C-alpha cells in the first residue's frame, strides 16, 4: 500500500530522463533475450549482458523501482514457463493428433506399431487408470484415517514424532521404490502369487499407493486441523463422545479438504514414472481379459520413459510420445484445478465464520 496512488503515466513523467532510458533499454533487452533464445541461442548473450548492465545502473540509481521491476519480471516468467510448457507440448504432439485423430484414444489393435506409424494410447490410458485406482484405494482411506489419527486421536508427544516422520517418508525417491519393487515385489509375486509375468499393474498400483500415502496424510491433516474448535466443542457439550464428534462433525466439516487431499494423491499417482517404469514389463496391449489387474501393460508415464530411447530420430514416434505427455498434462491439470477450487471454497466457508 503506498501512501499516494498515481497513475503509471504521471509516475513516468516524474522520472528523470536517464531512468527512463535505462528502463526502456532494460525492457528491450528482456524482449530481445526472449526472442533470441528462441531463434538463435548463441546471440542471446548480448541482450543478457545489456540487461545485466541496465539492472546494475538502475540498482545504483533507484533501487526501489529496479527491485519492483525485477520482481515483476520474475512473476511474469513463472506464467511464461507454464505457457511455454503447454505450447511446446501441444506443438510437438500436433502431428500425431492430426494423423491419428480420435483413434489415438479409442483405436483398436494393433495399438503401438512405430514401423507403420500407428499409435493408440488406449492400453496406456487403461494402465494409468487401473494403477491410479488401486493406488487411490490404498492411499485414500488409509491416508485419511492416518490424518485423523494425527490430528485428533494422537496424544501430543506421539503427534510430534509421527507427523515429521510421515513428512520425511514422503521424500523417499521413487526410483528407490522402483528398485525395491523390481528386486523384491516382482519376484515375490511370481513365486508366491503365481503371477505369470514379471511385473503387473497390481504390484505397481500397490507401490504407487504407498508412495502417495504421505502426501494424502499431510494435506488431509491440514484439512482436519483447520476445522474450528468451536464446532467440536459444541458437539462435546451436547454429550457426544470424541469418536462421534469426529464422525459426525469433523469429517463432514473438513470433507472438502479431505477430497482435495485425495485428489492431490491421485494427481501424484498419475504422474508417477520411475517406479512403474522399472516394475512393468512393457507390453503395449490390453491385458487379457481387460479386468485382469495382474496383467502387464504400460501406463502413460512408463510409455514415455521407456520408449524415449527408441524414439530419437523418428519424428512421428517422438510426436506420439508428446501426445501421451499432453494427455497426462491435461489430466493432472484438470485434477489440480479441481482440488484448488475445492480448497478455496473450503477456506471461504470457514474463513467467514472466524
Amino acid at each position: 500500500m503506498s501512501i499516494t496512488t498515481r497513475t503509471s503515466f504521471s509516475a513516468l513523467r516524474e522520472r528523470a530522463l536517464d531512468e527512463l532510458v535505462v528502463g526502456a533499454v532494460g525492457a528491450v533487452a528482456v524482449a530481445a533475450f526472449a526472442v533470441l533464445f528462441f531463434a538463435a541461442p548463441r546471440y542471446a548473450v548480448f541482450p543478457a549482458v545489456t540487461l545485466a548492465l541496465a539492472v546494475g545502473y538502475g540498482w545504483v540509481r533507484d533501487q526501489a523501482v529496479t527491485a519492483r521491476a525485477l520482481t515483476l519480471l520474475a512473476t511474469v516468467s513463472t506464467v511464461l514457463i507454464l505457457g511455454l510448457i503447454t505450447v511446446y507440448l501441444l506443438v510437438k504432439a500436433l502431428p500425431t493428433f492430426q494423423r491419428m485423430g480420435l483413434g489415438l484414444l479409442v483405436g483398436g489393435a494393433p495399438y503401438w506399431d512405430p514401423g507403420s506409424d500407428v499409435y493408440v494410447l488406449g492400453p496406456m490410458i487403461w494402465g494409468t487408470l487401473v494403477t491410479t485406482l488401486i493406488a487411490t484405494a490404498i492411499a485414500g482411506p488409509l491416508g485419511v484415517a492416518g490424518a485423523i489419527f494425527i490430528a485428533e486421536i494422537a496424544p501430543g508427544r506421539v503427534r510430534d514424532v509421527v507427523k515429521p516422520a510421515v513428512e520425511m517418508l514422503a521424500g523417499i525417491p521413487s526410483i528407490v521404490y522402483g528398485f525395491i519393487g523390481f528386486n523384491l515385489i516382482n519376484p515375490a509375486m511370481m513365486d508366491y502369487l503365481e503371477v505369470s509375468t514379471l511385473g503387473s499393474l497390481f504390484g505397481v498400483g500397490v507401490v504407487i499407493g504407498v508412495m502417495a500415502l504421505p502426501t494424502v496424510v499431510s494435506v488431509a491433516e491440514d484439512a482436519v486441523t483447520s476445522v474450528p474448535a468451536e464446532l467440536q466443542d459444541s458437539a462435546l457439550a451436547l454429550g457426544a463422545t470424541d469418536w462421534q464428534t469426529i464422525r459426525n462433525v469433523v469429517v463432514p466439516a473438513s470433507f472438502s479438504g479431505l477430497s482435495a487431499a485425495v485428489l492431490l494423491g491421485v494427481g501424484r499417482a498419475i504422474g508417477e514414472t520411475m517406479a512403474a517404469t522399472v516394475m512393468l514389463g512393457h507390453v503395449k496391449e490390453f491385458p487379457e481379459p481387460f479386468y485382469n489387474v495382474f496383467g502387464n501393460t504400460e501406463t502413460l508415464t512408463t510409455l514415455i520413459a521407456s520408449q524415449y530411447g527408441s524414439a530419437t530420430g523418428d519424428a512421428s514416434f517422438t510426436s506420439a510420445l508428446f501426445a501421451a505427455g499432453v494427455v497426462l498434462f491435461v489430466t493432472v491439470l484438470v485434477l489440480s484445478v479441481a482440488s484448488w477450487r475445492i480448497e478455496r471454497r473450503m477456506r471461504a466457508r470457514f474463513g467467514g465464520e472466524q
Partner: protein
Amino acid sequence: MSDAYDRRLHRGDGRGGWPSLAYAVVGVGLLSALFGAVTLLDWLTLSSGVGGVEMTTLYGAGLTVAGVATVALGFAAWMGAYETDARERTGIGEGALAGLAAFVVVGLVVSQSLGAGGAVWFLPALLVGAATVFLVGLAPEELGATLPWAALALVAGLAFLTGTFSVGWSWSPEGFGFAFTGIVVVPGLAILTGVLVAWAAAKAAQGFGARGRQAAAYLLIGANAFLMIGLLLALVVFIALRGAPTALEGAHLGPGLSVQIPFVTNGGGLGVEIEGVYPAIVGTFWLVFGALLFAVPLGVGAAVYLSEYATRGRFTTVVDVATDGLWSTPSIVYGLFGYAFLVPRLGNHSSIVAGMLVLGFMLLPLVLITSREAIGSVPEAYRDASVALGVNRWQTVRSVVLPAALPGIITGVILGVGRIAGETAPLILVAAGGLNGRAVHVLRSFRFTGTPPYVANDALLSATNALPYQVYAVLEAGVGGSEAFGWGTAFVLLVLVLCFYGVGIGTRLYFRGKLER
C-alpha cells in the same frame, strides 16, 4: 476431552471379569494380525516359508479360542451377565458390513467347492448376504456386533486347524493372472480375522454403545497408523540393511581423524578396486546447484512481488493457476519439455545445463509457494512500524520482511532440494548419459571463445551421471549390472534425501517454535 467415560460411580461396577476377557481377546486378535504381517514380510524378505506350517496351527488355535470367547462375550452381555449400554438393534451399518462379509465367504466357498464355472455362486451368496444384513441389523447389539466376526474367526481358525489351508494349497480365480496360495492366504486370513475379532471384542470391552464403538474405531485407526509408520520405517531399514554393506565396504578411519569411504570417493570402471559413485554424486551436486541458482531468485522474487506489490485481481489469479499447474505437472512432462525446448538450443544433446534448468523449473513452484507462505506470515505490525519510520516499500521488504521470512524460505528451499535430488525421469530425457568413470570438472572447464556467446564450458554441455540415474542404470543393465552396487547407490541416495528432508523439517519445527513463543 469428553467426560463421558467416567460415569460409573466406582470402578468395577457391574462388569466383573468380562472386560478383562474382552481385552484378552483383543490382544490375541492383534497378536495374530501382527504375526501374520511379520510372516508376510518374511515372505518378502527371505525366500522360505518354513515357519508356515506350525504357525498355521498356532493361528488356528488362537483364532478358535478368540472366536469362542467373543461368542461368550456376546451372549453373556445379552443375558445380562454384565452391564452394557448396548442398543436395541445393531443397526443397518454393521448389518451391511456383516452382509458383505457373508456374501464374500459364501461366494468363495460355493465357487470353490462346487467347482462350477461362471456365476453360479452369485445367487446363493447374494441371498445369504441379504439375509445376514437383516438378521444382524435387527438383532440386539450385543449379539449383532460380536457374533458375525466371532463366526468368521471360528471358521478361519478351524480351517487352519483342520489343514484346509496349508502351504501347498492354491486357488486361481478365473480370468485373473494370479493364484491365491497357501503361503499368502494363511497369514493374510490371520491378519484379517484377527483384526476383525479384536474389533468386535473392543466393543464388548467398553460395554457396547457409543463408548464401545469409539473404542473399536480407535483400535482400527490406531492399528492403521501403526501399520503405516511400521511399513515406511521397514522400507528405510530394509534399504539400509541391503545397501549399507556395499556402501561401507572398505570404509575405515583414515590418517588421523578423517573417515575414508571408498564407495563415495571412487569412480567406476576398470582398475578400481572398490567401485564407487563419486561421479554420480558430483553430477547430482552440480544439477542441484544449478537448479537452485535458477529457481531461488525467480521464486523469491515472484513471491515478493505477489505478496507486497500486486493487488488481487486477474493477474494474480492467473499466476496462482500457473503456479498450481507447475506444481502438479508430472516430472516426465518436464523432461519432455526440456527435450523439446532446451536440448535443441543447448547443443542438441543431453547436457548438465539442460538438466539444471529442468530441475530448476521443477523447483520453482516449490520455492514460490513456500516463500509466499513465509512472507505472508510475517506480521503486518513489522511492515507498519517500518512505514511509520518513513521507509519506502522496497527497503521495508529488504530489511524487515525478507529477514523475518528467511527461515520459512530456507525451509522451503531445503525441502525442494530434497525432492529434486531424487528425481530421475527428467534426467533420463535431458541430462543423463556419461559413464560412471570420471566426474565432470565444471570449474576447470570455463574458457573464452572467439564467437558468441564468448564463454563456453564443455563440462556443462556434456551429459552426466547422477545418483538416481545411477540406480536406474543398474536396473537397465539387467544381468550385466550388479544388484549390490544398485543397493549401495540407493542407500547413499536415500541417506542424502532423508538428510535434506530431516534438516528442512527440523528447521521448520525450530522456527515455528520460536514464532509461537
